């Protein structure tokens, strides 16, 4: 405990965190420009796209005014980005509802779904990975290797439909196939609705993390300090839990963060299968209805989440690697830290 406090007092980590957050800002700005350009800067325009064949000159004009489409592009962007900075993503194409109000509950529902999947998937994959590494080449390892190989190959909506077939409609009828949540309440008020979407995401994420964990653990188990620990006569349990595991987890943190970021994309399709009231279903509805302000808001939030998770992963990697921790605190040498983390991150 004292060591950790000392380290914080030195300010090394704080500087590092600040630096990483500052480096993240231009990236998020670039992301927002990309999102804006991909949608608003179309050859036709958003009003035409939205109204399609119901367009009359008056309605087109109304929507154009609504979305400021008559202004030059950079002004449209500035206006939109200015709003985004205050968590104001504008109104829907028809101008009836604030995007932020519309998304508020849905964001919470999606976060609940991501959290409930992550809470199960991450410990589960660490346990599977570690146990498979310890029992390397034995039955458990071979069986989980085969299953993770198969699961990793399956698209998530295929897994989702298998799950529905098995547990909701045909074989067993245990859980609801449609994740119904009362409007105005959040998803955890109906935990049964969460089971199948979460299970699908767990099945999608676990193979990747457990395979990385297994590889990392095998590498650590072959190292000299583990041999040393064994030669000292420590019990195998102590060797694995106290000596090997903490060293094997560090390289897995980046993968876990990447998988959590992937979850933000994976939920889109999985929510659609279960009609789960999160940002995924509303995104697909908005894509179909060409309601661009909603699509822009959700895309930008998901991309920004990726940046944030990457920053957290870098911090987590440093915290879980004593070698980096001390080196960084002493020398403030970022290049070293980046090199040791794998080099090609931001």
């Amino acid at each position, binding site marked *: 405990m004292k060591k950790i406090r000392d380290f914080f007092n030195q300010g090394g980590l704080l500087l590092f965190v600040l630096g990483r957050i500052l480096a993240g800002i231009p990236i998020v700005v670039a992301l927002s420009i990309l999102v804006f350009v991909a949608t608003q800067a179309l050859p036709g325009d958003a009003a035409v*796209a939205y109204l399609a064949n119901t367009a009359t000159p008056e309605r087109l004009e109304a929507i154009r005014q609504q979305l400021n489409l008559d202004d030059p592009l950079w002004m449209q962007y500035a206006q939109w980005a200015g709003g985004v900075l205050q968590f104001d993503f504008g109104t829907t194409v028809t101008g009836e509802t604030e995007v932020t109000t519309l998304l508020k509950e849905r964001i919470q529902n999606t976060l609940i779904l991501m959290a409930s999947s992550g809470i199960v998937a991450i410990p589960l994959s660490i346990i599977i990975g570690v146990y498979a590494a310890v029992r390397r080449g034995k039955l458990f390892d071979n069986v989980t290797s085969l299953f993770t190989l198969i699961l990793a190959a399956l698209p998530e909506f*295929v897994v989702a439909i298998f799950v529905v077939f098995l547990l909701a409609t045909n074989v067993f009828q245990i859980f609801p196939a449609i994740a119904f949540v009362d409007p105005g309440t959040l998803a955890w008020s109906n935990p049964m609705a969460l089971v199948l979407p979460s299970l699908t995401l767990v099945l999608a994420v676990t193979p990747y993390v457990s395979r990385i964990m297994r590889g990392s653990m095998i590498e650590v188990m072959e190292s000299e300090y583990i041999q040393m620990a064994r030669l000292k006569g420590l019990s195998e349990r102590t060797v694995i839990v106290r000596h090997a595991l903490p060293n094997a987890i560090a390289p897995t943190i980046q993968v876990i963060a990447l998988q959590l970021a992937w979850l933000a994309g994976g939920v889109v*399709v999985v929510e659609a299968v279960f009609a789960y009231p999160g940002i995924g279903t509303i995104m697909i509805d908005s894509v179909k209805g060409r309601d661009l302000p909603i699509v822009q808001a959700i895309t930008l939030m998901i991309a920004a989440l990726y940046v944030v998770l990457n920053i957290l992963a870098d911090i987590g990697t440093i915290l879980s690697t004593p070698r980096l921790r001390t080196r960084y605190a002493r020398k403030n040498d970022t290049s070293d830290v980046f090199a040791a983390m794998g080099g090609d991150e931001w």
Partner: protein
Amino acid sequence: MGLTFKQAYAKIGAVLVGIIIAIALFGPLFAPHTFDEFIDMPNAPRSDQLLLGADYLGRDVWSRFLFGGRTIIGLSFVSTLLGVGLGLLIGLFAASAQSRTDSLIMRMNDILLAFPQIVFVLLVVSGFGTSIFLIAITVGFTHAPRTARIIRAAAAEVMERDFIKAAVAVGEKRQRIILSELLPNVTSPLLVEFGLRMTYSIGLVAAVSFLGLGLQPPAADWGLMINENRGSMTVQPWAVLTPIFAIAIFTIGINFITDSFAKVAIGIDRKGKE
């Protein structure tokens, strides 16, 4: 021992992939009905005349299944080729460029990585409308930065070797160094990347159809079939299960091949079972 074990996986994978490609290519020749013909009651069960029953509108599931593989596999292949090709170019170019250009390219590349693939595809569809060609190109485009990253890492390692330094010292043109020195030395990671990207392409193309944003009815397409018949899965599971199994078998087969190739050729996971 380990080698034969891995080869067995590769063989199983090849058989699985071969079966599905054969169905997709030649299936329509054996279809008893056309894909949009109404031949029975909606959701008619399996019978002697109807191998897999009828779908939610009363069309022959077996015929629709035989017709439905062409687009998804064709589109996935095209988008993978496009994306891996583009990523290869970017990766080789960055690795052989000066370090400032290299890091500029890769930073821009990293920005694109922030969009999950399906989200980026949806973003583009929301702006430009649905079109299967647009979807193939967009899926390919989302592969490119991911492939570029892998190829750059592999090529950067090759750049450090003596024969490249010799080629540079002799004054060989950059284009020649990329094509005849770098490219032949990254073929293994390239093939692994191709297999991996192919499974993701299938997932993405099928998902887009499944979400109702790809091929439009009455087209026969595995993704679309799953979506259309999902509501009546309890009474007529075959209309959903057949295309689902086909997609699953195909992606699993590719993954088996890719995985055993990665282990044998590159020595990824060389510490696996000996």
